[in-house]
C-alpha cells in the first residue's frame, strides 16, 4: 500500500502565477507519481512560483528529495521558483545529508517565503 500524502492548493494573494501547496503525510517512492502529476499540472497551467508548506510533511526519502530538486529546477527554467517553508528538523537533516540545502530555497515559514517572491 502506498504511503499517505495529501496536497492542498491555495492561491497566494497579491502574487501572480503563485500557489501555496500544503504537503501532508509522507513523500516516498510509492507516491511520487501522484505528486509529480499534481505539481506538474500546476506548472503546465502557468503557475511557476510555488511555495511548498512542509509543516505537516512528516517524512521524505531520497526519491522524494529527487523530485523536490526536479520541481525547483523546472520552476527556475520557466522563470519562477520553488520555495520550501516550515520544514521539520528530521526532513531538513536528510536534505542536509545529501548536500541539497544550497540547491533548494528553504525558509522558516510561509510569510518569509512569500515575502521573497518577486
Amino acid at each position, binding site marked *: *500500500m502506498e504511503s499517505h500524502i495529501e496536497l492542498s492548493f491555495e492561491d497566494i494573494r497579491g502574487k501572480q502565477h503563485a500557489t501555496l501547496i500544503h504537503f501532508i503525510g509522507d513523500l*516516498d517512492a*510509492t507516491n511520487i507519481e501522484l505528486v509529480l502529476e499534481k505539481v506538474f499540472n500546476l506548472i503546465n497551467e502557468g503557475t511557476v512560483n510555488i511555495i511548498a508548506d512542509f509543516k505537516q510533511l512528516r*517524512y521524505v*526519502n*531520497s*526519491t522524494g528529495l*529527487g523530485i523536490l530538486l526536479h520541481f525547483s529546477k523546472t520552476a527556475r527554467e520557466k522563470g519562477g521558483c520553488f520555495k520550501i517553508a516550515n520544514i521539520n528538523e528530521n526532513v531538513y537533516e536528510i536534505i542536509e545529508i*545529501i548536500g541539497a540545502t544550497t540547491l533548494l530555497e528553504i525558509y522558516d515559514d510561509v510569510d518569509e517565503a512569500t515575502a521573497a517572491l518577486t
Partner: protein
Amino acid sequence: MAKTEDHNGKEIFPQCRKISIPFSVNVRFPGDLDYIPAVRKFVSELLQVSDFSPKFAYRSEIIVDEICNNAVTYGCQTDDAHIELLNKIFDDRIEFTIRDQGGTNNNLRRLKTAVKSGSSGKKKQTKPGLGLEIVRMLSERLDVVIDEKNLTSVHVVRKREDERGDVTLSN
C-alpha cells in the same frame, strides 16, 4: 524488557511483554515498493517499544527505506522475488541485514559503482548511491556484499544515541 505502550499510552505489541533485549525479528516481503512503507513503519514502532528515541526510530526508518528501495529496484528480477530484512535489536544498537534475490548485471554494476564512489568520497551520486550515502551518514557501519550468484546482502549497524538525541554523522 521492551515497552508495550506507545507515547500516547496506547498498548502495542502486547506479545513483547516477555521479550527481553536482545532479540531478532525477521521480515520477509514481496519485492514490490508498495510494501516498504509498512515495513519501515513496523521497524520504527519496534524500536520505539524497545525504548529507543523517536529520533533514532525515524533515522532507522530512513535506513530501512533506502536499503529496501535499492533491494527492490535493483535486486528483484522476477514477479515472485522477495526481500528479507533481519532486525537484531540490542541494548546499545540495532543491526539490519537486507537480502535480495539477485539483480541483473547492469544493476549490480550500478550498485558496485555507488558503493565505490560513496566510500571514496566522490560527490557525484548515482540513484542507488544517493540512498546509500544517506544510510552511510546515519549509521556506524555499512557493508554491501554481492556473492557469486549475484545475491546482494547489505548489513547496517546503528548505535543508540546519547540522551540529547544527537548522533555523530559518519564520514
